[in-house]
């Protein structure tokens, strides 16, 4: 019962913030709504017993990636969005299309899927067991993602650098 109440409250906050992301015209408001989505998702993960994933979601996603987004919005001085012809067309076609698609999918999921229920805290998601899986069964993906992150760091530094910072220094006479 308490599980259902908590799921509904935080699910509602999540959905409302996602809709707010679409409705707002200034990107900083969309960014802050996305932070609220990530926070409420972290609570949903906690309800399912995935405590390590919830903590990593807050630390990495809401605390680092979204801070990066907010930095870029501040640096580039992004202002309110303009309404162009292309965006009006996509508004009239896109929103009804997605609504119909998602209502259809929700109806199928509720009436016809054979899945059961989940209890609160069903799976023990403590760091010790996740570490067992991560360093034994998933060792290769783990090492590959570390190289991926290294490549991403180097790529980001090169792409965002000013052009004159990348010139080799000239020889002095």
């Amino acid at each position, binding site marked *: 019962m308490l599980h259902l109440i908590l799921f509904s409250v935080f699910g509602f906050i999540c959905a409302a913030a996602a809709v707010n992301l679409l409705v707002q015209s200034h990107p900083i408001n969309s960014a802050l709504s996305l932070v609220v989505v990530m926070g409420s998702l972290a609570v949903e993960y906690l309800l399912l017993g995935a405590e390590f994933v919830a903590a990593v979601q807050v630390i990495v996603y809401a605390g680092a990636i979204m801070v990066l987004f907010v930095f870029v919005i501040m640096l580039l001085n992004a202002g309110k969005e303009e309404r162009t012809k292309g965006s009006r067309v996509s508004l009239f076609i896109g929103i009804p299309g997605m609504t119909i698609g998602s209502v259809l999918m929700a109806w199928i999921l509720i009436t016809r*899927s054979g899945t059961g229920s989940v209890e609160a805290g069903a799976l023990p998601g403590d760091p010790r067991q996740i570490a067992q899986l991560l360093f034994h069964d*998933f060792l290769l993906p783990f090492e590959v993602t570390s190289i991926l992150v290294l*490549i991403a760091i180097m790529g980001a530094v090169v*792409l965002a650098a000013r052009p004159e910072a990348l010139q080799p220094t000239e020889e002095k006479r």
Partner: protein
Amino acid sequence: MVPLSYYLILSGFLFACGVTGFLIKRNIITIFMSIELMLNGVNLSFVAFAAQWHALSGQVFVFFVMVVAAAEAAVGLAIIIAVYRTRETLNVDQVNLLKL
């Protein structure tokens, strides 16, 4: 006891909002944020299924999705800064030099 389909509906709703944002928004940073919203919706369905089938690898995969999303966000935002520096605008409709 919450039926699993409720979690899947929330995940699908987040994904649908992400796709809608990707289609209707014109600011490049907001489009990128809709991509992150889609990734979050997918993460939720991973964790929900991991709880139902008692398979912890669902949560480990969420971990990898987050790492890849972080790398993608870093590189994507660097590209956005580079585009802004040359085109002076954040509106995707105006980044159309390759258009016929």
